Protein backbone atom coordinates (compact mmCIF):
# COMPACT_ATOMS: atom_id res chain seq x y z
CA UNK A 1 0.00 0.00 0.00
CA UNK A 2 2.75 2.34 1.02
CA UNK A 3 4.70 1.35 -2.09
CA UNK A 4 1.69 1.96 -4.30
CA UNK A 5 1.22 5.37 -2.76
CA UNK A 6 4.90 6.15 -3.17
CA UNK A 7 4.81 5.04 -6.82
CA UNK A 8 1.85 7.29 -7.41
CA UNK A 9 3.35 10.38 -5.78
CA UNK A 10 6.81 9.85 -7.26
CA UNK A 11 5.31 9.11 -10.65
CA UNK A 12 3.25 12.28 -10.52
CA UNK A 13 6.24 14.37 -9.49
CA UNK A 14 8.33 12.93 -12.29
CA UNK A 15 5.48 13.31 -14.76
CA UNK A 16 5.19 16.97 -13.81
CA UNK A 17 8.83 17.42 -14.72
CA UNK A 18 8.44 15.47 -17.96
CA UNK A 19 5.33 17.35 -19.00
CA UNK A 20 7.05 20.65 -18.43
CA UNK A 21 9.94 19.76 -20.72
CA UNK A 22 7.75 18.03 -23.30
CA UNK A 23 4.94 20.54 -23.72
CA UNK A 24 7.03 23.14 -25.56
CA UNK A 25 8.56 20.47 -27.76
CA UNK A 26 5.19 19.05 -28.78
CA UNK A 27 3.73 22.48 -29.42
CA UNK A 28 6.55 23.39 -31.79
CA UNK A 29 6.25 20.05 -33.53
CA UNK A 30 2.50 20.31 -33.84
CA UNK A 31 2.51 23.71 -35.42
CA UNK A 32 5.79 23.79 -37.29
CA UNK A 33 6.57 20.08 -37.80
CA UNK A 34 10.00 20.69 -36.33
CA UNK A 35 11.45 18.17 -33.92
CA UNK A 36 13.51 20.65 -31.99
CA UNK A 37 16.72 19.20 -30.54
CA UNK A 38 17.64 22.68 -29.35
CA UNK A 39 14.79 22.33 -26.87
CA UNK A 40 17.40 20.86 -24.55
CA UNK A 41 19.30 24.13 -24.83
CA UNK A 42 16.19 26.11 -23.91
CA UNK A 43 15.88 23.96 -20.83
CA UNK A 44 19.54 24.50 -19.96
CA UNK A 45 19.38 28.24 -20.57
CA UNK A 46 16.27 28.41 -18.41
CA UNK A 47 18.02 26.58 -15.60
CA UNK A 48 21.17 28.69 -15.84
CA UNK A 49 19.07 31.85 -16.04
CA UNK A 50 17.14 30.80 -12.96
CA UNK A 51 20.38 30.14 -11.10
CA UNK A 52 21.66 33.54 -12.12
CA UNK A 53 18.43 35.11 -10.92
CA UNK A 54 18.65 33.22 -7.64
CA UNK A 55 22.19 34.49 -7.20
CA UNK A 56 21.22 38.09 -7.86
CA UNK A 57 18.09 37.92 -5.74
CA UNK A 58 19.09 35.99 -2.65
CA UNK A 59 22.44 37.73 -2.31
CA UNK A 60 20.47 40.88 -1.56
CA UNK A 61 18.53 39.15 1.19
CA UNK A 62 15.16 39.93 -0.34
CA UNK A 63 12.03 38.08 0.85
CA UNK A 64 12.20 34.37 0.03
CA UNK A 65 8.92 34.00 -1.81
CA UNK A 66 9.68 36.58 -4.50
CA UNK A 67 12.85 34.84 -5.58
CA UNK A 68 11.05 32.01 -7.29
CA UNK A 69 8.99 34.44 -9.31
CA UNK A 70 12.08 36.38 -10.30
CA UNK A 71 13.79 33.16 -11.40
CA UNK A 72 10.87 32.21 -13.59
CA UNK A 73 10.58 35.65 -15.12
CA UNK A 74 14.26 35.89 -15.96
CA UNK A 75 14.32 32.37 -17.41
CA UNK A 76 11.31 33.07 -19.59
CA UNK A 77 12.81 36.34 -20.76
CA UNK A 78 15.90 34.40 -21.81
CA UNK A 79 13.67 31.88 -23.59
CA UNK A 80 11.93 34.69 -25.43
CA UNK A 81 15.13 36.24 -26.67
CA UNK A 82 16.68 32.90 -27.59
CA UNK A 83 13.55 31.74 -29.39
CA UNK A 84 13.30 34.96 -31.35
CA UNK A 85 16.94 34.86 -32.40
CA UNK A 86 16.79 31.24 -33.49
CA UNK A 87 13.55 31.46 -35.38
CA UNK A 88 14.33 34.69 -37.20
CA UNK A 89 18.06 34.10 -37.49
CA UNK A 90 18.24 30.44 -38.47
CA UNK A 91 15.07 28.42 -38.78
CA UNK A 92 13.17 30.56 -41.22
CA UNK A 93 15.84 29.83 -43.79
CA UNK A 94 15.11 26.12 -43.70
CA UNK A 95 11.31 26.08 -43.70
CA UNK A 96 10.10 23.74 -46.39
CA UNK A 97 13.21 21.58 -46.24
CA UNK A 98 13.00 17.93 -45.31
CA UNK A 99 11.77 17.37 -41.73
CA UNK A 100 14.90 15.44 -40.91
CA UNK A 101 17.17 18.17 -42.26
CA UNK A 102 15.44 20.64 -39.98
CA UNK A 103 16.08 18.28 -37.07
CA UNK A 104 19.75 18.39 -37.99
CA UNK A 105 19.66 22.19 -38.08
CA UNK A 106 18.34 22.24 -34.55
CA UNK A 107 21.00 19.70 -33.63
CA UNK A 108 23.65 22.08 -34.99
CA UNK A 109 22.11 24.91 -33.00
CA UNK A 110 22.17 22.69 -29.93
CA UNK A 111 25.89 21.98 -30.38
CA UNK A 112 26.61 25.67 -30.74
CA UNK A 113 24.54 26.63 -27.71
CA UNK A 114 26.30 24.03 -25.56
CA UNK A 115 29.51 26.00 -26.00
CA UNK A 116 27.71 29.33 -25.66
CA UNK A 117 26.75 28.17 -22.17
CA UNK A 118 30.41 27.59 -21.33
CA UNK A 119 31.15 30.98 -22.78
CA UNK A 120 28.56 32.77 -20.65
CA UNK A 121 28.51 30.79 -17.43
CA UNK A 122 31.81 28.91 -17.43
CA UNK A 123 32.22 25.23 -16.68
CA UNK A 124 31.35 25.37 -12.98
CA UNK A 125 28.01 24.23 -11.61
CA UNK A 126 25.33 26.43 -10.10
CA UNK A 127 22.58 25.94 -7.57
CA UNK A 128 19.25 27.61 -6.96
CA UNK A 129 17.90 25.47 -4.14
CA UNK A 130 16.41 28.31 -2.08
CA UNK A 131 12.79 27.97 -3.27
CA UNK A 132 12.76 24.25 -2.58
CA UNK A 133 14.12 24.71 0.93
CA UNK A 134 11.70 27.55 1.54
CA UNK A 135 8.78 25.38 0.47
CA UNK A 136 9.50 22.81 3.18
CA UNK A 137 7.94 19.37 3.39
CA UNK A 138 4.96 17.44 4.64
CA UNK A 139 4.87 14.03 6.32
CA UNK A 140 2.34 11.48 5.18
CA UNK A 141 2.78 8.31 7.16
CA UNK A 142 6.31 7.12 6.68
CA UNK A 143 6.82 9.20 3.58
CA UNK A 144 8.03 12.76 3.52
CA UNK A 145 6.96 14.73 0.49
CA UNK A 146 8.60 17.90 -0.65
CA UNK A 147 6.12 20.75 -0.93
CA UNK A 148 8.08 21.93 -3.90
CA UNK A 149 7.27 18.70 -5.73
CA UNK A 150 3.62 19.22 -4.93
CA UNK A 151 3.94 22.75 -6.25
CA UNK A 152 5.51 21.41 -9.46
CA UNK A 153 2.63 18.99 -9.95
CA UNK A 154 0.19 21.85 -9.40
CA UNK A 155 2.02 24.11 -11.82
CA UNK A 156 2.17 21.39 -14.45
CA UNK A 157 -1.52 20.69 -14.07
CA UNK A 158 -2.16 24.42 -14.28
CA UNK A 159 -0.04 24.61 -17.40
CA UNK A 160 -1.99 21.77 -18.99
CA UNK A 161 -5.31 23.41 -18.15
CA UNK A 162 -4.06 26.74 -19.39
CA UNK A 163 -2.89 25.21 -22.65
CA UNK A 164 -6.26 23.53 -23.07
CA UNK A 165 -8.09 26.78 -22.38
CA UNK A 166 -5.78 28.84 -24.59
CA UNK A 167 -6.14 26.49 -27.54
CA UNK A 168 -9.90 26.19 -27.20
CA UNK A 169 -11.01 29.64 -26.18
CA UNK A 170 -8.54 32.27 -27.30
CA UNK A 171 -8.30 33.69 -30.77
CA UNK A 172 -4.63 32.84 -31.09
CA UNK A 173 -5.24 29.35 -29.77
CA UNK A 174 -7.94 28.64 -32.32
CA UNK A 175 -5.65 29.99 -34.99
CA UNK A 176 -3.00 27.53 -33.87
CA UNK A 177 -5.48 24.69 -33.94
CA UNK A 178 -6.30 25.55 -37.53
CA UNK A 179 -2.62 25.62 -38.47
CA UNK A 180 -1.96 22.32 -36.69
CA UNK A 181 -4.93 20.74 -38.40
CA UNK A 182 -4.33 21.94 -41.91
CA UNK A 183 -1.61 24.30 -42.95
CA UNK A 184 -2.79 24.95 -46.50
CA UNK A 185 -6.29 25.78 -45.38
CA UNK A 186 -4.86 28.11 -42.76
CA UNK A 187 -2.89 29.97 -45.39
CA UNK A 188 -5.93 30.04 -47.65
CA UNK A 189 -7.96 31.62 -44.87
CA UNK A 190 -5.49 34.45 -44.77
CA UNK A 191 -3.76 33.43 -41.55
CA UNK A 192 -0.27 34.88 -41.46
CA UNK A 193 1.63 31.63 -41.04
CA UNK A 194 4.96 33.44 -40.66
CA UNK A 195 3.78 35.27 -37.58
CA UNK A 196 2.18 32.15 -36.19
CA UNK A 197 5.48 30.30 -36.59
CA UNK A 198 7.52 32.99 -34.90
CA UNK A 199 5.12 33.32 -32.00
CA UNK A 200 4.81 29.56 -31.59
CA UNK A 201 8.53 29.03 -31.58
CA UNK A 202 8.99 31.74 -28.99
CA UNK A 203 6.27 30.25 -26.80
CA UNK A 204 7.89 26.84 -27.16
CA UNK A 205 11.28 28.27 -26.23
CA UNK A 206 9.77 30.02 -23.21
CA UNK A 207 8.12 26.79 -22.11
CA UNK A 208 11.45 24.98 -22.42
CA UNK A 209 13.15 27.68 -20.35
CA UNK A 210 10.31 27.53 -17.85
CA UNK A 211 10.89 23.79 -17.48
CA UNK A 212 14.56 24.51 -16.75
CA UNK A 213 13.69 27.22 -14.25
CA UNK A 214 11.22 24.98 -12.43
CA UNK A 215 13.74 22.16 -12.15
CA UNK A 216 16.61 24.49 -11.22
CA UNK A 217 15.92 24.42 -7.45
CA UNK A 218 16.06 20.62 -7.42
CA UNK A 219 19.21 20.04 -9.37
CA UNK A 220 22.79 21.04 -9.70
CA UNK A 221 23.01 23.10 -12.87
CA UNK A 222 25.97 21.77 -14.82
CA UNK A 223 27.10 21.45 -18.40
CA UNK A 224 25.25 18.82 -20.34
CA UNK A 225 21.91 18.96 -18.50
CA UNK A 226 20.28 19.71 -21.86
CA UNK A 227 21.40 16.44 -23.44
CA UNK A 228 19.59 14.30 -20.90
CA UNK A 229 16.40 16.26 -21.26
CA UNK A 230 16.16 16.02 -25.05
CA UNK A 231 15.86 12.27 -25.23
CA UNK A 232 13.48 12.17 -22.29
CA UNK A 233 11.25 14.76 -23.89
CA UNK A 234 11.43 12.89 -27.21
CA UNK A 235 10.32 9.72 -25.49
CA UNK A 236 7.38 11.43 -23.81
CA UNK A 237 6.29 13.10 -27.00
CA UNK A 238 6.67 9.93 -29.06
CA UNK A 239 4.56 7.99 -26.56
CA UNK A 240 1.84 10.64 -26.42
CA UNK A 241 1.81 11.46 -30.09
CA UNK A 242 3.91 14.18 -31.62
CA UNK A 243 2.25 17.53 -31.72
CA UNK A 244 -0.48 16.68 -29.27
CA UNK A 245 -0.69 18.58 -25.98
CA UNK A 246 -2.94 16.02 -24.32
CA UNK A 247 -0.56 13.40 -25.70
CA UNK A 248 2.33 15.06 -23.89
CA UNK A 249 0.31 15.01 -20.69
CA UNK A 250 -0.64 11.35 -20.96
CA UNK A 251 2.83 10.44 -22.21
CA UNK A 252 4.40 12.18 -19.21
CA UNK A 253 2.05 10.36 -16.84
CA UNK A 254 2.73 6.96 -18.39
CA UNK A 255 6.48 7.39 -18.50
CA UNK A 256 6.54 8.98 -15.03
CA UNK A 257 4.52 6.20 -13.38
CA UNK A 258 6.41 3.45 -15.23
CA UNK A 259 9.74 4.83 -14.12
CA UNK A 260 8.61 5.26 -10.52
CA UNK A 261 7.25 1.70 -10.53
CA UNK A 262 10.54 0.44 -11.93
CA UNK A 263 12.55 2.23 -9.22
CA UNK A 264 10.38 0.76 -6.47
CA UNK A 265 9.76 -2.70 -7.85
CA UNK A 266 12.48 -3.58 -10.37
CA UNK A 267 15.37 -1.13 -10.03
CA UNK A 268 17.50 -3.10 -12.49
CA UNK A 269 15.34 -2.12 -15.47
CA UNK A 270 15.10 1.55 -14.54
CA UNK A 271 17.86 2.45 -16.98
CA UNK A 272 15.92 1.58 -20.09
CA UNK A 273 12.31 1.41 -18.94
CA UNK A 274 11.58 4.72 -20.64
CA UNK A 275 12.86 3.52 -24.00
CA UNK A 276 11.14 0.19 -23.61
CA UNK A 277 7.83 1.97 -22.99
CA UNK A 278 8.50 4.18 -26.00
CA UNK A 279 9.34 1.26 -28.27
CA UNK A 280 6.33 -0.68 -27.04
CA UNK A 281 3.91 2.16 -27.65
CA UNK A 282 5.40 2.83 -31.09
CA UNK A 283 5.02 -0.84 -32.02
CA UNK A 284 1.30 -0.82 -31.36
CA UNK A 285 0.53 2.82 -32.07
CA UNK A 286 3.14 3.95 -34.57
CA UNK A 287 2.10 7.57 -34.29
CA UNK A 288 1.79 7.65 -30.52
CA UNK A 289 -1.34 7.46 -28.43
CA UNK A 290 -2.98 10.68 -29.51
CA UNK A 291 -2.29 11.09 -33.17
CA UNK A 292 -3.21 9.00 -36.13
CA UNK A 293 -1.70 8.65 -39.53
CA UNK A 294 -3.69 10.59 -42.04
CA UNK A 295 -4.40 8.25 -44.93
CA UNK A 296 -3.22 9.73 -48.19
CA UNK A 297 -5.84 10.36 -50.82
CA UNK A 298 -5.12 8.97 -54.22
Amino acid at each position, binding site marked *: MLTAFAILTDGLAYAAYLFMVAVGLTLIFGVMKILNVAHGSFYAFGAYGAAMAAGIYYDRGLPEAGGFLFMILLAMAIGLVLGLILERGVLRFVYGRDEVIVVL*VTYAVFLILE*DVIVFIWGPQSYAAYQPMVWAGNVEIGELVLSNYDILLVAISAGLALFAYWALKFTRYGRLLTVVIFDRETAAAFGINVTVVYTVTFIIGAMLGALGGAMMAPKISITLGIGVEVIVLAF*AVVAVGGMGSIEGALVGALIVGICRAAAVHLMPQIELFVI*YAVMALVL*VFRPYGLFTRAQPRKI
Partner: protein
Amino acid sequence: MLSRANLIGAVLFLAAGIIGFFLPPWLVSLLTIAFANALVVLGLIILWRAGLVPFGQALYYCSGAYTVALLARWAGVSDAFVLLIAGGLVAGIVAFLTGFLLARYREIFFAMLSLAMSMILYGVLVKTETLGSTDGFGVDPPHFLGYAPHGDALGFALYWFVLVVCAISALVIGVYFKSVAGALAVPIRDNEIRVEFLGISVTRLIHMKLVIAGTLAGVGGALAAMTIGHVDPNMSYWTTSGGFVFVTILAGAGSVAAAFVGSLVFEIVRSFAFAVLPGFWQMTLGIVLLLTILFLPEGLGSLATRFRRRKPDTKPVATS
Protein backbone atom coordinates in the same frame (compact mmCIF):
# COMPACT_ATOMS: atom_id res chain seq x y z
CA MET B 1 31.64 -3.97 -65.04
CA LEU B 2 35.15 -2.67 -65.67
CA SER B 3 33.84 0.80 -66.31
CA ARG B 4 35.90 3.94 -66.17
CA ALA B 5 34.48 4.80 -62.77
CA ASN B 6 35.63 1.53 -61.33
CA LEU B 7 38.99 1.95 -62.95
CA ILE B 8 39.43 5.40 -61.46
CA GLY B 9 38.14 4.11 -58.16
CA ALA B 10 40.79 1.40 -58.29
CA VAL B 11 43.49 3.94 -59.07
CA LEU B 12 42.36 6.16 -56.20
CA PHE B 13 42.29 3.19 -53.90
CA LEU B 14 45.84 2.25 -54.81
CA ALA B 15 46.92 5.88 -54.49
CA ALA B 16 45.34 6.12 -51.04
CA GLY B 17 47.09 2.92 -50.05
CA ILE B 18 50.48 4.04 -51.28
CA ILE B 19 50.14 7.53 -49.82
CA GLY B 20 49.75 5.76 -46.50
CA PHE B 21 53.42 4.87 -46.55
CA PHE B 22 54.40 8.52 -46.73
CA LEU B 23 51.99 9.84 -44.13
CA PRO B 24 52.87 10.10 -40.44
CA PRO B 25 51.33 7.28 -38.37
CA TRP B 26 48.87 9.56 -36.57
CA LEU B 27 47.40 10.63 -39.89
CA VAL B 28 47.20 7.01 -41.04
CA SER B 29 45.31 6.19 -37.89
CA LEU B 30 42.99 9.15 -38.44
CA LEU B 31 42.32 8.03 -42.02
CA THR B 32 41.69 4.48 -40.85
CA ILE B 33 39.01 5.59 -38.41
CA ALA B 34 37.54 8.00 -40.95
CA PHE B 35 37.21 5.24 -43.55
CA ALA B 36 35.81 2.75 -41.05
CA ASN B 37 33.15 5.30 -40.12
CA ALA B 38 32.56 6.00 -43.81
CA LEU B 39 31.05 2.53 -44.15
CA VAL B 40 28.38 3.42 -41.59
CA VAL B 41 27.76 6.63 -43.50
CA LEU B 42 27.51 4.69 -46.75
CA GLY B 43 24.71 2.68 -45.16
CA LEU B 44 22.98 5.86 -44.05
CA ILE B 45 23.21 7.20 -47.59
CA ILE B 46 21.36 4.11 -48.82
CA LEU B 47 18.57 4.83 -46.37
CA TRP B 48 18.59 8.58 -46.88
CA ARG B 49 18.06 8.12 -50.61
CA ALA B 50 14.81 6.44 -49.73
CA GLY B 51 13.96 9.32 -47.38
CA LEU B 52 14.81 7.47 -44.18
CA VAL B 53 17.11 8.90 -41.52
CA PRO B 54 17.60 6.70 -38.47
CA PHE B 55 18.73 8.24 -35.18
CA GLY B 56 19.74 4.82 -33.97
CA GLN B 57 22.18 3.44 -36.54
CA ALA B 58 24.67 3.15 -33.67
CA LEU B 59 22.76 0.00 -32.69
CA TYR B 60 24.33 -1.91 -35.58
CA TYR B 61 27.68 -0.17 -35.30
CA CYS B 62 27.83 -1.17 -31.66
CA SER B 63 26.64 -4.73 -32.40
CA GLY B 64 29.46 -5.17 -34.91
CA ALA B 65 32.03 -3.73 -32.53
CA TYR B 66 30.93 -5.83 -29.55
CA THR B 67 30.83 -8.98 -31.67
CA VAL B 68 34.48 -8.47 -32.53
CA ALA B 69 35.41 -7.62 -28.97
CA LEU B 70 33.56 -10.59 -27.50
CA LEU B 71 34.90 -13.08 -30.04
CA ALA B 72 38.41 -11.81 -29.40
CA ARG B 73 38.04 -11.91 -25.65
CA TRP B 74 36.00 -15.03 -25.02
CA ALA B 75 36.58 -17.20 -28.05
CA GLY B 76 40.17 -16.17 -28.66
CA VAL B 77 39.48 -15.35 -32.31
CA SER B 78 42.15 -13.02 -33.57
CA ASP B 79 41.95 -13.18 -37.35
CA ALA B 80 40.80 -9.87 -38.77
CA PHE B 81 38.89 -11.48 -41.64
CA VAL B 82 36.91 -13.79 -39.38
CA LEU B 83 36.20 -10.96 -36.94
CA LEU B 84 35.09 -8.66 -39.72
CA ILE B 85 32.71 -11.17 -41.25
CA ALA B 86 31.30 -12.05 -37.84
CA GLY B 87 30.77 -8.37 -36.99
CA GLY B 88 28.98 -7.68 -40.25
CA LEU B 89 26.93 -10.85 -39.99
CA VAL B 90 25.72 -10.24 -36.44
CA ALA B 91 24.83 -6.63 -37.21
CA GLY B 92 23.08 -7.80 -40.37
CA ILE B 93 21.04 -10.31 -38.39
CA VAL B 94 20.16 -7.67 -35.81
CA ALA B 95 19.12 -5.37 -38.66
CA PHE B 96 17.10 -8.16 -40.24
CA LEU B 97 15.21 -8.79 -36.99
CA THR B 98 14.64 -5.14 -36.08
CA GLY B 99 13.80 -4.54 -39.73
CA PHE B 100 10.49 -6.38 -39.44
CA LEU B 101 9.38 -3.52 -37.23
CA LEU B 102 11.36 -0.59 -38.56
CA ALA B 103 10.49 -1.16 -42.22
CA ARG B 104 6.89 -0.19 -41.46
CA TYR B 105 7.86 3.26 -40.18
CA ARG B 106 8.68 6.48 -41.97
CA GLU B 107 9.97 9.94 -41.33
CA ILE B 108 10.36 11.10 -37.79
CA PHE B 109 8.65 8.00 -36.40
CA PHE B 110 11.25 5.82 -38.04
CA ALA B 111 13.96 8.01 -36.56
CA MET B 112 12.45 7.79 -33.09
CA LEU B 113 11.86 4.05 -33.08
CA SER B 114 15.39 3.36 -34.23
CA LEU B 115 16.62 5.70 -31.51
CA ALA B 116 14.62 3.82 -28.88
CA MET B 117 16.06 0.51 -30.05
CA SER B 118 19.65 1.67 -29.88
CA MET B 119 19.07 3.17 -26.44
CA ILE B 120 17.74 -0.16 -25.20
CA LEU B 121 20.98 -1.82 -26.29
CA TYR B 122 22.85 0.98 -24.54
CA GLY B 123 20.90 0.35 -21.34
CA VAL B 124 21.53 -3.39 -21.49
CA LEU B 125 25.27 -2.94 -22.06
CA VAL B 126 25.62 -0.42 -19.25
CA LYS B 127 23.79 -2.81 -16.96
CA THR B 128 25.98 -5.79 -17.87
CA GLU B 129 28.99 -5.72 -15.59
CA THR B 130 30.53 -8.82 -17.19
CA LEU B 131 30.88 -6.79 -20.38
CA GLY B 132 32.68 -4.02 -18.53
CA SER B 133 29.60 -1.81 -18.12
CA THR B 134 30.30 1.77 -19.26
CA ASP B 135 34.06 1.26 -19.15
CA GLY B 136 33.85 -1.28 -21.93
CA PHE B 137 36.87 -3.44 -22.56
CA GLY B 138 39.87 -3.74 -24.78
CA VAL B 139 40.32 -5.60 -28.05
CA ASP B 140 43.73 -7.09 -28.74
CA PRO B 141 45.35 -6.22 -32.07
CA PRO B 142 44.10 -8.60 -34.78
CA HIS B 143 46.14 -10.94 -36.97
CA PHE B 144 45.86 -11.03 -40.73
CA LEU B 145 45.87 -14.67 -41.91
CA GLY B 146 48.71 -15.46 -39.56
CA TYR B 147 50.55 -12.17 -40.01
CA ALA B 148 50.76 -10.43 -36.63
CA PRO B 149 52.25 -6.95 -36.96
CA HIS B 150 53.09 -4.54 -34.14
CA GLY B 151 53.46 -0.80 -33.79
CA ASP B 152 53.49 1.20 -37.00
CA ALA B 153 53.26 -1.95 -39.12
CA LEU B 154 49.99 -2.77 -37.38
CA GLY B 155 48.73 0.72 -38.19
CA PHE B 156 49.52 0.24 -41.88
CA ALA B 157 48.08 -3.26 -41.94
CA LEU B 158 44.83 -1.98 -40.47
CA TYR B 159 44.82 0.93 -42.88
CA TRP B 160 45.19 -1.36 -45.86
CA PHE B 161 42.66 -3.76 -44.46
CA VAL B 162 40.12 -0.96 -44.00
CA LEU B 163 40.91 0.36 -47.48
CA VAL B 164 40.28 -3.03 -49.07
CA VAL B 165 37.01 -3.45 -47.20
CA CYS B 166 36.00 0.06 -48.24
CA ALA B 167 36.89 -0.58 -51.87
CA ILE B 168 34.88 -3.79 -51.97
CA SER B 169 31.94 -2.14 -50.22
CA ALA B 170 32.09 0.86 -52.55
CA LEU B 171 32.08 -1.45 -55.56
CA VAL B 172 29.18 -3.54 -54.28
CA ILE B 173 27.12 -0.53 -53.21
CA GLY B 174 27.89 1.16 -56.53
CA VAL B 175 26.35 -1.83 -58.28
CA TYR B 176 23.47 -1.79 -55.84
CA PHE B 177 22.71 1.89 -56.48
CA LYS B 178 22.35 1.09 -60.17
CA SER B 179 20.26 -1.99 -59.56
CA VAL B 180 16.49 -2.07 -59.58
CA ALA B 181 16.25 -2.35 -55.81
CA GLY B 182 18.79 0.43 -55.30
CA ALA B 183 17.38 2.73 -57.94
CA LEU B 184 13.91 2.44 -56.40
CA ALA B 185 15.10 4.50 -53.43
CA VAL B 186 14.09 7.81 -54.98
CA PRO B 187 10.71 6.47 -56.13
CA ILE B 188 10.08 5.24 -52.59
CA ARG B 189 10.93 8.65 -51.20
CA ASP B 190 8.86 10.41 -53.84
CA ASN B 191 5.77 8.26 -53.93
CA GLU B 192 5.48 5.04 -52.05
CA ILE B 193 1.96 4.25 -53.10
CA ARG B 194 2.92 4.42 -56.73
CA VAL B 195 5.73 1.93 -56.14
CA GLU B 196 3.29 -0.48 -54.52
CA PHE B 197 0.91 -0.12 -57.46
CA LEU B 198 3.73 -0.92 -59.83
CA GLY B 199 3.83 -4.32 -58.19
CA ILE B 200 6.62 -4.47 -55.63
CA SER B 201 6.60 -4.41 -51.84
CA VAL B 202 7.98 -1.17 -50.47
CA THR B 203 8.24 -2.66 -47.01
CA ARG B 204 10.46 -5.44 -48.25
CA LEU B 205 12.58 -3.10 -50.34
CA ILE B 206 13.12 -0.97 -47.26
CA HIS B 207 13.76 -4.04 -45.16
CA MET B 208 16.50 -4.98 -47.59
CA LYS B 209 17.98 -1.49 -47.36
CA LEU B 210 17.92 -1.72 -43.57
CA VAL B 211 19.79 -5.02 -43.66
CA ILE B 212 22.41 -3.67 -46.07
CA ALA B 213 22.84 -0.47 -44.07
CA GLY B 214 22.94 -2.42 -40.82
CA THR B 215 25.55 -4.82 -42.17
CA LEU B 216 27.69 -1.92 -43.36
CA ALA B 217 27.36 -0.29 -39.93
CA GLY B 218 28.36 -3.57 -38.34
CA VAL B 219 31.39 -3.88 -40.60
CA GLY B 220 32.28 -0.27 -39.75
CA GLY B 221 31.89 -1.03 -36.06
CA ALA B 222 34.02 -4.16 -36.38
CA LEU B 223 36.77 -2.20 -38.10
CA ALA B 224 36.49 0.59 -35.54
CA ALA B 225 36.81 -1.91 -32.69
CA MET B 226 39.98 -3.37 -34.20
CA THR B 227 41.42 0.06 -34.96
CA ILE B 228 40.61 1.71 -31.64
CA GLY B 229 41.31 -1.42 -29.63
CA HIS B 230 38.46 -0.69 -27.27
CA VAL B 231 34.67 -0.93 -27.21
CA ASP B 232 32.20 0.75 -24.86
CA PRO B 233 28.42 1.27 -24.67
CA ASN B 234 28.74 4.86 -25.89
CA MET B 235 29.04 3.28 -29.32
CA SER B 236 25.29 2.71 -29.03
CA TYR B 237 24.36 6.09 -27.52
CA TRP B 238 22.15 8.41 -29.53
CA THR B 239 24.88 11.03 -29.89
CA THR B 240 26.96 8.45 -31.80
CA SER B 241 24.06 7.97 -34.22
CA GLY B 242 23.68 11.73 -34.39
CA GLY B 243 27.33 12.01 -35.36
CA PHE B 244 26.86 9.58 -38.25
CA VAL B 245 23.81 11.44 -39.48
CA PHE B 246 25.86 14.63 -39.24
CA VAL B 247 28.51 13.16 -41.54
CA THR B 248 25.84 11.91 -43.92
CA ILE B 249 24.39 15.39 -44.28
CA LEU B 250 27.88 16.77 -44.72
CA ALA B 251 28.63 14.17 -47.39
CA GLY B 252 25.35 14.30 -49.28
CA ALA B 253 23.62 11.33 -50.83
CA GLY B 254 24.93 11.98 -54.29
CA SER B 255 27.40 9.15 -54.64
CA VAL B 256 29.30 6.34 -53.02
CA ALA B 257 32.42 8.49 -52.94
CA ALA B 258 30.58 11.15 -50.91
CA ALA B 259 30.56 8.87 -47.88
CA PHE B 260 34.33 8.60 -47.86
CA VAL B 261 34.99 12.25 -48.59
CA GLY B 262 32.45 13.37 -46.01
CA SER B 263 33.80 11.10 -43.33
CA LEU B 264 37.36 12.19 -44.02
CA VAL B 265 36.50 15.88 -43.95
CA PHE B 266 34.53 15.43 -40.75
CA GLU B 267 37.36 13.63 -38.99
CA ILE B 268 39.84 16.29 -40.06
CA VAL B 269 37.58 19.16 -39.00
CA ARG B 270 36.93 17.49 -35.67
CA SER B 271 40.58 16.82 -34.97
CA PHE B 272 41.47 20.32 -36.11
CA ALA B 273 38.87 21.83 -33.77
CA PHE B 274 40.19 19.73 -30.88
CA ALA B 275 43.72 20.91 -31.50
CA VAL B 276 43.03 24.57 -32.17
CA LEU B 277 39.85 25.35 -30.22
CA PRO B 278 39.85 22.77 -27.43
CA GLY B 279 37.01 24.42 -25.51
CA PHE B 280 34.84 25.13 -28.51
CA TRP B 281 34.91 22.11 -30.75
CA GLN B 282 31.18 21.50 -30.39
CA MET B 283 30.47 25.02 -31.59
CA THR B 284 32.84 24.54 -34.52
CA LEU B 285 31.10 21.34 -35.56
CA GLY B 286 27.69 22.95 -35.12
CA ILE B 287 28.65 25.87 -37.33
CA VAL B 288 30.07 23.56 -39.99
CA LEU B 289 26.86 21.54 -39.99
CA LEU B 290 24.70 24.63 -40.16
CA LEU B 291 26.68 26.15 -43.00
CA THR B 292 26.59 22.87 -44.91
CA ILE B 293 22.82 22.65 -44.66
CA LEU B 294 22.31 26.29 -45.59
CA PHE B 295 24.78 26.62 -48.41
CA LEU B 296 25.49 23.08 -49.59
CA PRO B 297 22.10 21.40 -49.39
CA GLU B 298 23.32 18.42 -51.39
CA GLY B 299 26.42 18.00 -49.26
CA LEU B 300 30.08 18.05 -50.15
CA GLY B 301 29.43 15.64 -53.00
CA SER B 302 27.59 18.42 -54.82
CA LEU B 303 30.69 20.60 -54.91
CA ALA B 304 32.14 18.43 -57.63
CA THR B 305 28.88 18.53 -59.57
CA ARG B 306 28.64 22.29 -59.34
CA PHE B 307 32.19 22.65 -60.50
CA ARG B 308 31.56 20.44 -63.47
CA ARG B 309 28.40 22.28 -64.47
CA ARG B 310 30.34 25.47 -64.90
CA LYS B 311 32.43 23.91 -67.59
CA PRO B 312 30.98 24.93 -70.95
CA ASP B 313 31.80 21.79 -72.91
CA THR B 314 29.71 19.41 -70.84
CA LYS B 315 26.15 18.64 -71.68
CA PRO B 316 23.79 20.70 -69.56
CA VAL B 317 21.54 18.76 -67.26
CA ALA B 318 18.02 18.86 -68.64
CA THR B 319 16.35 20.77 -65.86
CA SER B 320 17.05 21.59 -62.31
